[in-house]
């Protein structure tokens, strides 16, 4: 809402400097998003202030200062033809100096023979906006000869002053403008742009802002209820009103303005509308806008004669306004010329011949006022706000009127707006008003009395206010007060619909008392029972472990495309999860982000795809949710906490010392998992089983925790790699469910006693069938060797001569240590024999001779 200070001052005394007022409004919830200085200098404290130079482009309107020494209110003394140019005139201007000045102008609204008009007159050296540049470019007015005649000043258009785009003609000021006064004093202004929160629709008007200013600054208000001069015959002779659907229309008032002449509005009406951001159209239309911005009541003007003609066409001799829901599929052409198909949720203003307006949203083409209009039926009504909002949204018809109706216009404002509008129309259009107002008011505005006590204020806000102090604050806001013992019964002023419970009143007390005046205290209340959030702690632990393992954390969008899942089924796209397996967005921003991801692997691949343009090595992880509707409760999906790891590119990018440029592969990803399980103390419970999945090639494994599958690790199938454009190097990917790991961070690791006896290292190489997994061999060794085997490392896998085909040699390094004695050669030799014996029996292993 744009609020010109000059207009605001009509209703409230303002003595605070602009910047202070801005701050006070903002703190009280009227957030001033911008302050525009129209022709006047911003206060010294304004931080964006900078000297404007010729050639600068200023944004918006009004960002130039009208030099008080150079730009004045002038009066046209005479207008003569330019001797050498048809379209130019010589205008002599009196601007308060002894000698008037003659300048050359091309303004079409000054003609030879004119005189007496008040104009905005700039003398040489003034900074103005260049009327002929595309942007609002500043130029300095210089004296010059135009077709041989010296011109030392300029009669200005709105554009040259930075007021608007208008530069067809010059500004003609009102007749009472004081000649010689600096223009900045006469027309200069400050416009606040205030953001309105949904509960504060009462400030979507100048008067509404004025009331707040009065309450906040304790300044006197000057708001008079509008009155009108009417004459018979009464309005009731012209029309009737019947509200059928009173759940959607709580009140409908209509007045009749007769014999108006349509024409442009006077200067000040137009000027104020422009400052507020509206384009003046004609006196009738301007009045509806003016009253809406002044009082907050949107009005609609119907051409009464057109309504009457419609009535007569169906054999009636009186207009009847009917407010009802539209019929399903009913057609209606709005005043923008668009035919719209309506449904039964749309509230229509109708006459007996059919619809004439969409209630609170837009009028109809057929009955709108035009230049020929002479008689007006002026509507001022109150609609159910949610319905208006839905209609405006559905029909994509946002407007200033719909904006106010969709937040709630109080029914008690209807007649006030109607009286004000009708009288202004009569004033500006020279007509008169029919006696009385047609008023159907089936749903009276509720009056709600709300209790509030000193204790409420103390309990909710933490401040001690006496009953009198509370009452004083509420009276500043024009609440009606009734006191009953220690209870203050407060009734909000009629123009507010947002106060119905004690908390609403407490908010008002806090706002006016000042949030900044409320003290800061530390929580003195009892500390609630404290619990640990193990799922969160696990996530945090995993982040640390993985970052320490050299992986970068990523956070990807939760939304992806089904297509990405299809790409991970290169051989059987038909096996990819179908749409029913996804949480699907009804209104995605793009198809690429149209479903919620089921796992994080796809996100990782998308992520690699983007990054491999800049880098050739990626080692990343993500912890986040996968969304599985099929596991949900039928309404909401199950959300599973997942971890993904992705590795590609050189293992250790080379430098001058060393390096390992070979690409990371399955074993790098598996190594990260091993380190992770090791850190969590889960290693002994984890098993990797050779198994592939759609996204992987043959080098893949299922990850099992205590026999239950919790994830996969593998090298991405080359076709999947190609589908994601990931180049020719292996991409290793692992995905895990993390919830099963929670017990490991809840259990504390138990210290194994550290032996003081020497450790003995033994190497052992075994020849086994190719089909026997190394993990099984290691497990058997561990089982056989017992507690004295402290460590086992596989250090070599060998195939080829002299190992027979179909066999491989696995070399392990074993570390033995006893907690109670020094192991002798004999002890280790015995263990070794035991191991070889068991492996030979169970898996046909042979000791490889050195």
């Amino acid at each position: 809402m744009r609020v010109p200070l000059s207009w605001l001052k009509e209703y409230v005394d303002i003595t605070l400097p602009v910047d202070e007022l801005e701050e006070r409004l903002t703190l009280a919830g009227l957030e001033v998003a911008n302050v525009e200085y129209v022709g006047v200098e911003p206060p010294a404290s304004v931080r964006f202030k900078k000297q404007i130079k010729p050639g600068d482009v200023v944004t918006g309107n009004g960002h130039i200062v009208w030099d008080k020494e150079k730009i004045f209110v002038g009066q046209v003394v005479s207008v003569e033809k330019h001797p050498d140019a048809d379209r130019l005139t010589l205008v002599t201007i009196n601007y308060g100096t002894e000698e008037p000045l003659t300048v050359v102008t091309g303004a079409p609204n000054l003609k030879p023979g004119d005189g007496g008009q008040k104009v905005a007159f700039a003398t040489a050296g003034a900074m103005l906006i260049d009327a002929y540049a595309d942007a609002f470019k500043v130029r300095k007015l210089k004296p010059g000869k135009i077709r041989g005649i010296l011109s030392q000043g300029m009669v200005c258009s709105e554009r040259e002053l930075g007021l608007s785009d208008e530069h067809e003609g010059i500004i003609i000021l009102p007749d009472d403008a004081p000649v010689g006064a600096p223009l900045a004093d006469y027309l200069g202004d400050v416009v606040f742009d205030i953001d309105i929160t949904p509960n504060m629709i009462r400030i979507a008007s100048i008067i509404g802002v004025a009331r707040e200013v009065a309450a906040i600054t304790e300044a006197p208000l000057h708001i008079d209820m509008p009155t009108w001069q009417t004459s018979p015959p009464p309005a009731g002779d012209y029309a009737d009103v019947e509200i059928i659907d009173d759940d959607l229309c709580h009140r409908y008032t209509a007045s009749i303005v007769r014999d108006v002449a349509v024409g442009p509005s006077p200067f000040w009406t137009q000027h104020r509308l422009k400052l507020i951001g509206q384009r003046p159209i004609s006196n009738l239309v301007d009045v509806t806008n003016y009253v809406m911005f002044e009082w907050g009541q949107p009005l609609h003007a119907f051409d009464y004669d057109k309504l009457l003609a419609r009535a007569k066409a169906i054999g009636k001799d009186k207009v009847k306004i009917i407010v009802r829901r539209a019929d399903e599929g009913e057609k209606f052409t709005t005043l923008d010329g668009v035919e719209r198909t309506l449904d039964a949720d749309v509230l229509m203003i109708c006459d007996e011949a059919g619809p004439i307006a969409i209630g609170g949203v837009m009028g109809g083409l057929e009955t709108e006022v035009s230049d020929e209009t002479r008689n007006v039926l002026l509507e001022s009504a109150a609609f159910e706000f949610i319905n208006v909002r839905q209609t405006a949204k559905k029909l994509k018809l946002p407007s200033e009127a719909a904006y106010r109706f969709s937040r709630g216009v109080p029914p008690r404002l209807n007649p006030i707006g109607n009286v004000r509008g009708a009288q202004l129309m009569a004033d500006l259009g020279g007509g008169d008003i029919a006696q009385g107002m047609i008023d159907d008011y089936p749903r009276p505005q509720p009056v709600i009395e709300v209790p509030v006590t000193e204790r409420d204020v103390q309990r909710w806000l933490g401040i001690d206010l006496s009953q009198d102090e509370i009452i004083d604050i509420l009276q500043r806001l024009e609440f009606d007060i009734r006191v009953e013992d220690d209870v203050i019964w407060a009734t909000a002023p009629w123009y507010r619909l947002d106060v119905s419970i004690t908390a609403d009143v407490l908010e008002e007390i806090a706002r006016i008392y000042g949030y900044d005046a409320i003290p800061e205290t530390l929580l003195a209340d009892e500390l609630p029972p404290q619990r640990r959030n193990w799922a969160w702690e696990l996530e945090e632990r995993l982040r640390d472990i993985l970052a320490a393992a050299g992986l970068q954390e990523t956070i990807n969008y939760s939304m992806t495309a089904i297509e990405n899942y299809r790409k991970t089924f290169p051989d059987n796209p038909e096996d990819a999860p179908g749409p029913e397996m996804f949480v699907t967005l009804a209104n995605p921003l793009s198809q690429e982000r149209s479903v919620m991801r089921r796992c994080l692997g796809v996100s990782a691949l998308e992520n690699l795809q983007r990054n491999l343009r800049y880098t050739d090595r990626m080692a990343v992880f993500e912890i986040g949710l996968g969304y599985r509707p099929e596991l949900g409760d039928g309404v909401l999906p199950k959300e599973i906490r997942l971890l993904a790891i992705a590795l590609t590119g050189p293992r250790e990018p080379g430098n001058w010392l060393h390096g390992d440029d070979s690409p990371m592969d399955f074993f790098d990803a598996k190594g990260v998992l091993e380190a992770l399980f090791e850190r969590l103390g889960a290693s002994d419970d984890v098993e990797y089983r050779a198994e592939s999945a759609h996204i992987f090639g043959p080098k893949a494994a299922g990850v099992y925790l205590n026999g239950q599958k919790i994830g996969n690790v593998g090298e991405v199938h080359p076709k999947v790699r190609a589908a994601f454009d990931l180049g020719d190097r292996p991409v290793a990917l692992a995905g895990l469910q993390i919830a099963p790991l929670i017990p490991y961070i809840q259990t504390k690791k138990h210290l194994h006693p550290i032996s003081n006896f020497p450790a003995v290292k033994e190497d052992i190489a075994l020849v086994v069938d190719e089909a026997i997994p190394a993990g099984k061999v290691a497990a058997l060794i561990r089982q056989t060797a017992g507690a004295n085997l402290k460590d086992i490392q596989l250090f070599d896998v060998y195939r080829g001569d002299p190992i027979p085909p179909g066999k491989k040699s696995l070399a392990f390094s074993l570390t033995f240590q006893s907690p109670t004695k020094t192991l002798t050669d004999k002890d280790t030799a015995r263990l070794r024999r035991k191991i070889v014996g068991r492996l030979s029996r169970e898996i046909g292993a042979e000791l490889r001779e050195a």
Partner: protein
Amino acid sequence: MSQHQELIQLQAQAENELADARDEKQLEAWRIKWLGRKGLVPAAVKQIGSLPKEERAAYGQAVNQLKQAVQAAFEARQQQLKEAAMAAELRSEGFDPTLPGRRPQIGRLHPSSATLREIAHIFAHMGFEVYTARDVETDEYNFQLLNFPKGHPAREMQDTFHTTTPDVLLRTHTSPGQIRVMRERYPEPIRVILPGKCYRYEQVTARSEMMFHQVEGLVVGKNITFADLKGTLQAFVDQLFGEGRQLRFRASHFPFTEPSAEVDVDCILCGGKGCRVCKYTGWLEILGCGMVHPNVLRNGGYDPEEWSGYAFGMGPERIAMLLHGVDDIRYFFSNDVRFLEQF
């Protein structure tokens, strides 16, 4: 040749070969050859037994001299080599400390995670536990129970991603967690923060994202006031941005709190003098907050006549942007490593 001569030759040969031993390994090989158990010198000593008696004394003396001489030469050589090795280690030609070191691969947290963690730590010190709630929510939890009836204009402030299941949506804020934690914990007092992802149906620009994180705070108790809210947030901001920060509480509106406030901190970049980041206002908006609306308390199971509470919410990305001078929120989820590796 006489045995004496043989011994002299043997000693000469030993000393020659010793001179050729240039490192410890060669020296050890020499030692084994000459002085080892089966070495040449002990072999020469053993010959004493095979000599006629009359020659033994003279030979014995000679061979002992030989043994001592060779042993001494060995020790001298050993000492010499040690000194040479140490001297070599202490030579510094070609050493350039500016050559790059061998770096382990390092990983990092995402800046959103890191900021979230920092926020959670600060609140943990004030007794706030972390409570996590779901992303895909019902209209009821995301809006209705938080005092946004259907069709309410305040819903316009939060453009929503709906799903194809009626009344199921992506949460637009972490606030539905308020209801979930209240319903779970009643009648205990509550002091939690609720971190998580939120989603808004908004065109992605440098200033707005369709997905972002929020950290919500919720306190419910028998004596919780707006003054407590102010005190908590001041303590938080002092810890996050450094002592002595100015806070400004502006009246605002959120359907689920009343009174509601938006909170600005004096610009951490210009100190309040006015700069591009604070749009020359001197203030940076960092939080929304307020006293929990009585309807919301009631929806959570708490009687507003007996209980009161406050709630606040902030965006870790917004805070990370301020702390690190990031001017485009899109960096956070495009996961460009050139961005991530800077933290």
